[in-house]
């Protein structure tokens, strides 16, 4: 605790960027960002608060992930931007895996952090990433050494408890040559009237033959039926396949947040590297989701696959926005994109905005998107067999998103399925 407090804010910032000027420029560029300083003031008391509350949220974590700690999921819990507890550190250390909060990592492994942080998402990347780089307070750090297959699933649990706060956490995962790690991320926030800001940055780096599987179940408070309150979720997530035949896979289930703005991306730099993106975005009430991915093919023989399923209900707006691009040198790049949208109710919107840029003739890109509603026939069939309209809808929706659910680790998949049913409650009948 005292160590956290002893770290002055500028130190954090300096790690990620030497040119301090950027901060001024960016703050000047968008004056509407008044949430940031407020949250910083609140960091110190928040640590104590979070510490006191520790018992309760950890139990919630167990419920959320559907697992007991004995199931050997190492957890790093982050409350209001500060990492409060990291479990199983010793056991992981035996395997050579470093899994700790990023504040500890700065103390214990400064050379690793300095080498990789900001190398995937540069400080100047975008508005919220810059804000994060300037004020990020904590997050998780994972380092998998050469040839190690991480013995357990790693998990981070984020929660925003404080009123009116912004959460700015930063996650950095490095997988050295031939290693593998599966990382889970869960997010929740209690009900509040005010809008809260969540602006995280996640950076993944894979070396030769390494693989990172990153799964997210996001269930921030989405605001009430009239759109009051809820989290603004502005996240920058990017992976960099630096080595040959490396692989990064993003899987996300987005059910919460008032506004989601999130594009987990993969830079396919290494020869033969592979990027995957599986997403389910469910929006209900007044939620707005604008999510998608970027697959940037730079190396030869790189492949990527995008499966996105959007479900909009109530008065929500759900957008898929994605970019697939092939650089001139990305010979034989291959992409397949499939984004399907399902509409429930006649006041919602589903939009698709893909960008497909090919600069080499040997690249093969395919993109397909469909939008439809739940067919009357399917509903009728289910209801005829004694299911209620709501149950039938949930069943059909779960079938619709099955491709993506299969990509999630088992505990998460069960949880995600329930979450989807819950978030669609009240959308039918």
């Amino acid at each position: 605790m005292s160590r956290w407090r002893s770290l002055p804010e500028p130190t954090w910032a300096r790690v990620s960027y030497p040119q301090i000027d950027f901060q001024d420029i960016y703050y000047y560029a968008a004056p509407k960002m008044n949430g940031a300083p407020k949250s910083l003031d609140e960091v110190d008391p928040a640590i104590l608060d979070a510490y006191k509350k520790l018992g309760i949220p950890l139990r919630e974590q167990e419920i959320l992930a559907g697992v007991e700690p004995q199931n050997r999921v190492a957890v790093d819990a982050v409350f209001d931007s500060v990492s409060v507890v990291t479990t199983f550190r010793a056991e992981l250390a035996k395997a050579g895996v470093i899994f700790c909060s990023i504040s500890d990592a700065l103390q214990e492994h400064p050379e690793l952090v300095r080498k990789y942080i900001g190398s995937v998402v540069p400080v100047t990347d975008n508005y919220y990433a810059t804000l994060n780089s300037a004020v990020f307070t904590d997050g998780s750090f994972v380092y998998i050494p050469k040839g190690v297959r991480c013995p357990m699933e790693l998990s981070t649990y984020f929660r925003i408890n404080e009123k009116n706060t912004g959460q700015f956490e930063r996650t950095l995962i490095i997988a050295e040559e031939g290693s593998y790690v599966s990382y889970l991320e869960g997010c929740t926030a209690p009900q509040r009237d005010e809008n809260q800001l969540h602006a995280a940055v996640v950076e993944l780096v894979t070396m030769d033959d390494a693989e990172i599987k990153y799964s997210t179940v996001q269930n921030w408070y989405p605001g009430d039926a009239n759109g009051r309150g809820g989290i603004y979720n502005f996240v920058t997530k990017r992976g960099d396949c630096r080595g040959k035949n490396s692989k990064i896979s993003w899987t996300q289930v987005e059910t919460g947040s008032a506004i989601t703005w999130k594009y987990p991306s993969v830079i396919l730099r290494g020869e033969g590297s592979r990027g995957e993106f599986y997403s389910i975005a469910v929006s209900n009430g007044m939620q707005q989701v604008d999510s998608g991915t970027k697959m940037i093919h730079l190396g030869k023989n790189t492949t990527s696959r995008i499966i996105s399923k959007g479900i909009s209900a109530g008065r929500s707006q759900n957008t898929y926005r994605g970019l697939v691009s092939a650089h001139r040198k990305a010979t034989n790049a291959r992409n397949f994109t499939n984004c399907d949208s399902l509409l429930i109710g006649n006041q919602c919107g589903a939009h698709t905005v893909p960008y497909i840029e090919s600069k080499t003739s040997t690249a093969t890109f395919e993109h397909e998107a469909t939008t439809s509603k739940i067919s009357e026939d399917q509903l009728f069939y289910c209801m005829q067999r004694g299911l209620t309209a709501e149950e039938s809808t949930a069943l059909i929706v779960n079938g619709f998103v099955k491709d993506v659910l299969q990509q999630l680790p088992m505990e998460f998949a069960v949880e995600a399925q329930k979450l989807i049913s819950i978030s669609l409650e009240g959308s039918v009948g």
Partner: protein
Amino acid sequence: MNVKVTTIRTAAEAALIERFPALKAGLPGPAAPREQAFATFMASGLPNRRVEAWKYTDLRAAMREAAPLAPKPDAAQTTVALKGNSPLAGQGAVTLSFVNGYHVGTEGTVPSGVTIVPLAEALGSGHPLLARMGTLALAQGDTALALNTAFMTDGAVIHVAAGAEVDGPIALTFVTAGPSAIATAARVLMVVEAGAKVLLVESHEGQGKLAHQTNTAVEIIAGDGADVQHVRLGLNSEGAVALSTLTADLGAATSLTSVNVALTGAMVRHQVYARFSGGDARAQINGATLLQGQQHADSTLVVEHAAEPGGESRELFRTIIDDEASGVFQGKIIVQPHAQKTDGRMASNAVLLSQGAAMYNKPELEIFADDVACAHGATCGALDDELLFYLMSRGISKAEAEALMIESFVGAAIDDIAHEAIRDVLHGLVQEWLKVRAARINAGAGV
């Protein structure tokens, strides 16, 4: 990044702003609509990469200088310009010829049920149909269209009477020619009354390598139950910066088929704005583009389904890109909240023939109604090796095999033209393009 908004104009913008006051006095018709349109341009300037709709086509960079607006050609110039034989010559029941954006002559007889008035004359006399010009809200704010409205010199106002089944196509030939680069702005308004049937064919031709700046716009307003077919051929001069806009306002149960074939021009952009204002209309909008050298072609499309039942729209864009050319497809289907039962399908397929070629696809769906079936697909890649191998293993040379595949690929977009003779002419132009390509490859192989 804090970018200060500045009012610094590029040389081309400054030239347009400087010339407009003097020009508008000499151009036909009332000045007010021109001034209004010019204000739209002033507000946005020439579109550049920062403007989302022009993300892949930087007009500001392509138009370093604004070419002077062409004066009305004299008889000698007209004769010279019309000397080159248009590939679509003789296809129209009636053909209106335009040189540098001015009407120079009409051949054939105007079919019964049709009235055609040259635009300059219509503007001068305050033709009643002009009240319907520029009324499609969907296209308002478009810079290319605004510039056309501000500078339009001539064109045609076409009226097709209710129930008229017009025999033979109405053909418009636009030729741009001159000793130096010039700018042209021609405009066509076609109002098709309820139940009428008509085919409009436009051909845009330019000679030589000069960087002419052409900007044409065709507005189609189709009454309930009308059947409108539209064919556009782009054969601009090699250096041309050619902008064209088609707007279509579709009444209930109308049918529109529009096919654009683009072959030459350094930077060409064809925009389509189609609105389903009445229920149950149907539109088939196609594009066939063949590019080589350093050419850049952009097909941008916005289709709005705004009535219930939302109707059916089909879009098929086929692009062939060789050498270091680049192609763009931007398509957007909008389904308004009440436009239930809309069925929209959009496809953009591109074949890249060389390592330096590039294709940018942006197919968008914007859907606010739930009882719809909308889909889009976009592909780009090289010709299928297996198919090539199949053909070559049967004794067909590589160049021929490629030509066969390209022809059938592009032909799919042309085949929706019902008029057989015109369809054949366009297929012929594609074959010609392929022949030139084959000759180039053979010459290269011989070296």
